[in-house]
């Protein structure tokens, strides 16, 4: 039981990932596909953040021993900052991907007059 509850954030990751991936595959609307892609990527971000978190640990900011009236710095447990920092990069990449994707959708809408995959295929094959 504690295993299941302790892993709750990973279950959320799996659910989110599948929701995103399913949306990406099953939806015909190009904007909805991008939303699915973004949910998928966000699930990965959540996964990385969970990697770095240690229960009861504090943010990785160096605490000077004098700050807390004699509380020793050597007893402080920090979370691992590296996965969190990596995800800053991944967030930037995700934003860039989304914006490139959305601007492509805008152009597609201008060229075809629709953002629906089936309709686009129909128009292309009708040429």
């Amino acid at each position: 039981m504690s295993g299941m509850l302790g892993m709750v954030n990973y279950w959320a990751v799996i659910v989110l990932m599948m929701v995103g991936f399913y949306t990406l595959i099953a939806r015909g609307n190009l904007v909805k596909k991008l939303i699915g892609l973004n949910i998928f990527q966000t699930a990965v971000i959540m996964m990385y953040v969970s990697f770095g978190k240690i229960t009861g640990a504090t943010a990785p900011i160096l605490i000077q021993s004098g700050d807390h009236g004699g509380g020793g710095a050597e007893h402080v447990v920090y979370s691992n900052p590296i996965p969190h920092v990596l995800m800053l990069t991944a967030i930037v990449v995700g934003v860039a991907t989304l914006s490139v994707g959305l601007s492509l959708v805008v152009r597609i809408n201008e060229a075809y007059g629709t953002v629906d995959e089936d309709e686009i295929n129909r128009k292309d094959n009708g040429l």
Partner: protein
Amino acid sequence: MSENLPALLIVVPLILAPVAALVGRRDLSWAVAAAACWWAFGAALALLRRVQAEGVIRYELGGWAPPIGIEYRVDLASAFVALIVATIGAVTVVYARTSIAQEITEDRAPLFYAAYILCLTGLMGIAITGDVFNVFVFLEISSLSAYALIALGHDRRALTAAYQYLIMGSVGATFIVIGIGLMYVMTGTLNMVDLAERLPAVADNRTIPVAFAFLTVGVTLKLALFPLHLWLPNAYTYAPSAVTAFMASTATKVSVYLLLRFFFTVFGFDFAWVGMELHRVLMPLSVVAILAMSLVAIYQTNVKRLLAFSSVAQIGYMMLGISFGSVLGVTAGILHLFNHALMKGALFMAMGCVMYRVGSVSTDRMAGLGKAMPWTMAAFVLAGLSLIGVPLTVGFVSKWYLVQAALEQGQWAVAGVVMVGSLMALVYIWKVVEVAYFGEPDPDHELREAPLGLLVPTWILVIASFWFGIDATTTAEVATAAAETLLRGLP
């Protein structure tokens, strides 16, 4: 200066990219792009020479030592791939000047060149970095700029092709990030060398095979191994000519290199081949890729699309070589990586010449082109011979190694597949040759030869594909040494 060469190889083009976008005039931004590409070419060549002379170069970025900082690790395989990318980039940028002037409007040209330089930078970065998360960052730099480059195509279908590529490419990249994350959580490092040292200790844990699976699927999506190739044909067909020539010869090749890096350096031969029995998956897929995609190529009427399907088949050859897991097989894979870059680049550039004059690369519009554009079509025929694998061409060299690698393991049927694939290449190249040389030209259209600005780069690649076919010792030596380094694992 020479001490910092690995960093400068990446940083100089990276800085020149916004400059190309900001100068605002087509010719000026072209000059900036050309400077960036030729700089990269010179630097990559110097790097390869240094690696040959001194061995592996390890460069700590910003002076931060590996576990914390990012390391560039240049060995023979990475220097060779970086040189391939830079060479094709430098030749294509010359080609792009004339080709892009016709295909892309004046105000968009600077942005095109900026994206082009970024794409080149990203691809070279993947080749020389020694940090797995850095790989992801460079992968996204090159991919995002590639989506933009493809979307610049004339046809509106270029937009949907770019969109499709964006979706599939991002899924592939995200899979790679998942794989990297799972490796990190088990080992606590992102450095390739450290990973290789620490992975065997935890290889029994179920997380590592899962990471391996995610990475394999992610990278094979990027390199368009059958059946994950669906993004490729449309992207190559509708992108601007120069972009197709550049992407076809570099983007998938770098992904093949990335796969080699993950399989051999990070996970090691014992894990990937002995433990996971990877060849049982890779070999059948490669064989199907060669046969099925060559067959599909035969039935195409758009020649760019025909060549795109042929590319998927050729990637099958590379993966087939790698799937043997032997020095000879990996050598064949690396050799074909270089050789295919030369000939596919030349073929797509020849089609770009046709596109420039005729405005279409459909076979029914190409009748009689052999007379109207003799140099263009001659280049196409010669590069086509190389694709088929006629002796004295580079295509022959890689197929020779591939067949040898197959026979070494007693895989007669697989060697037969290589032969059948070559025959099928003969059929689809002949299809174009027949129309161009024996078809009746349309008398209403007066056609002239393509301008020199397009012909010269095309012929450089054609001559190179014969040069390295006749004198294959240099490339074969480098490829063999690179394969040996990869298979030996880390010192």
